[in-house]
């Protein structure tokens, strides 16, 4: 394989890896606080993308559009926790998981009502043109996707590792009883985690819309991508989600460049199967902290 081709594959792998990582982080945030896998995560991404497009088309500049989308998605996340998950806090995890599926149907219905069946798109952020680099082409949006993911990753590391609020959030999942005796309000923390995950999801939605377009029904496929990234690396560690996301993105891009037909789609779930059989909690997960 010649150099420009390899570089092209590497760039699309980095792009795909950033998207996988960003999607997976939403699962990590909720899981690390509540031990719940939120199957509505993809719907927040859809909501973020749709809202950003709508506000942008109204003539509002890009950054305020995204901010508004993040706020509205955050409210949707708060609603999901407060009115659906919180009343079921004593129920089995499976029931809670399926409750998020109920929310998926409802939010898809709302989106269909507001936006209809059409696919919507955005230009690359700030109309960044395509970049030619040593014979490879970089789409204008790609640097923004990778940059936004990096900012999210650094922000999350700082928040969970360095701030007292972040540590309180993590404590809820690791030692619920201990956290409570230290005066941490677990339900409040769970609420924050849903708002955070929904907000992160909305940012992801805005940043991938110029690349993939968005429609009311795209949430499922994004949820599945995020779950794959989070499970491969280990859902209870941010490092795990990053490793999983980047590995899946790179492998899928390489396969897409080399394997004909649609077979490259088998790579990501195939990797998950192999990883889980060898390391039952994901590559980097801390065993005993995944249920």
């Amino acid at each position: 394989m010649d150099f420009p081709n390899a570089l092209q594959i590497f760039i699309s792998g980095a792009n795909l890896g950033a998207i996988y990582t960003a999607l997976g982080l939403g699962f990590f945030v909720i899981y690390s606080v509540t031990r719940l896998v939120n199957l509505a995560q993809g719907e927040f991404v859809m909501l973020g993308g749709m809202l950003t497009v709508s506000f942008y088309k109204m003539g509002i500049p890009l950054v305020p559009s995204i901010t508004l989308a993040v706020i509205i998605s955050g409210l949707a996340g708060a609603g999901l926790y407060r009115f659906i998950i919180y009343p079921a806090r004593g129920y089995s995890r499976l029931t809670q998981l399926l409750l998020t599926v109920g929310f998926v149907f409802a939010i898809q219905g709302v989106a269909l009502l507001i936006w209809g069946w059409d696919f919507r798109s955005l230009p690359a952020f700030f109309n960044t043109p395509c970049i030619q680099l040593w014979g490879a082409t970089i789409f204008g949006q790609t640097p923004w996707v990778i940059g936004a993911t990096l900012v999210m990753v650094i922000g999350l590391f700082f928040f969970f590792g360095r701030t007292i609020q972040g540590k309180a959030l993590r404590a809820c999942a690791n030692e619920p009883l201990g956290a409570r005796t230290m005066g941490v309000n677990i339900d409040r923390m769970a609420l924050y985690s849903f708002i955070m995950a929904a907000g992160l999801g909305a940012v992801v939605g805005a940043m991938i819309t110029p690349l993939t377009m968005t429609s009311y029904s795209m949430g499922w496929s994004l949820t599945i991508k995020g779950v794959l990234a989070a499970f491969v690396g280990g859902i209870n560690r941010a490092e795990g989600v990053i490793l999983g996301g980047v590995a899946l993105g790179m492998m899928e891009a390489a396969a897409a460049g080399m394997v004909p037909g649609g077979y490259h789609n088998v790579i990501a779930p195939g990797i998950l199967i192999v990883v889980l059989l060898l390391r039952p909690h994901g590559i980097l997960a801390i065993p005993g902290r995944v249920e």
Partner: protein
Amino acid sequence: MNAFREISSKISAVKLQNRVIALFALVMMTIPLGIGPYPISAMVDVGLYSIVTIGIILLMGFAGQISIGHAAFFGIGAYTSAILTTHYQFSPWLALFLGAALSGGIAAAIGRAMFRLHGLMLAGITLALNLVFYHLVCSMIGLTGGAMGLINIPPLILGGFNFSRSFLTYYMVWIIAIVILGFSLNLADSQVGRTLRSMNTHAGGSENAAQVLGINVNSYKVQILVLSAVYASIAGSIYAHHARVVEPGTFFIPFSVMVVIMALLGGLRSPWGAFLGAGLMIGVREFLWEVMPVFVTGVTGAYELIAYGVILILALLFLPRGLISLFGRAFTKRRATV
């Protein structure tokens, strides 16, 4: 004397159960005489979903293992039937059995490795298996027709009856569903069912304790997985011959999640729950699609989706142990024998 009383009460419980099954069969066989073709086709859906859901209930409620990948087994049945009957002119019935054998074989092959995982991670690997199946079906265009699917699948034929007419399909689906129900209820009451409950942590059992007693826990789990895969595959084959077309979107994650929802909403304690769960979800769907356009005009599908989601949420919130918990002894009496 005490033991005698215990045995006789058990026999009468079994008799009661058989009577309930017979009554249920009688009711289901008379229903088509009174209603039109449209509800009949919805009832065919209920029957097909129930067959898959019975397998899920055995797997989740009795063996205590989760799967978000049974759409793949449903799909293996459907595609085996579709491919063998359209490409190679096999008899539909032979194709149905071959599909079930293939599904069971695959389940047996992957089961042992798969059940090293528990809970969430088991859900994850079954989800991944479903994705692999879906993308393979989409990619192997020569065999499966890819995203376009396969068309012109012949209907099932039995003794000159052509099962493409929905009344005959109805009878075939429901007779098979009731046979599977009877088999599953007996299995749940047998030594196998008691063993499964003894190792199911969700039903108050303990895997470690069962293992100490010399029970090969993994082998039991794999056997139930194989059984549920065979059920799903049979339903898939019937579906292919009923719909006459198959396309990959049917066999994706939403189907796998839906049968888990049906199992939970119906109740995991008894195979009867499958009919309640499938009946509720399909019933609500048909009702909304039929009734909502009368009240609200606008974007088609949106209000239905919202109402569907809200009903699902309310049902899960207020009936966490399933519809079966509303019924009496006849359905849940096997609790007492644990």
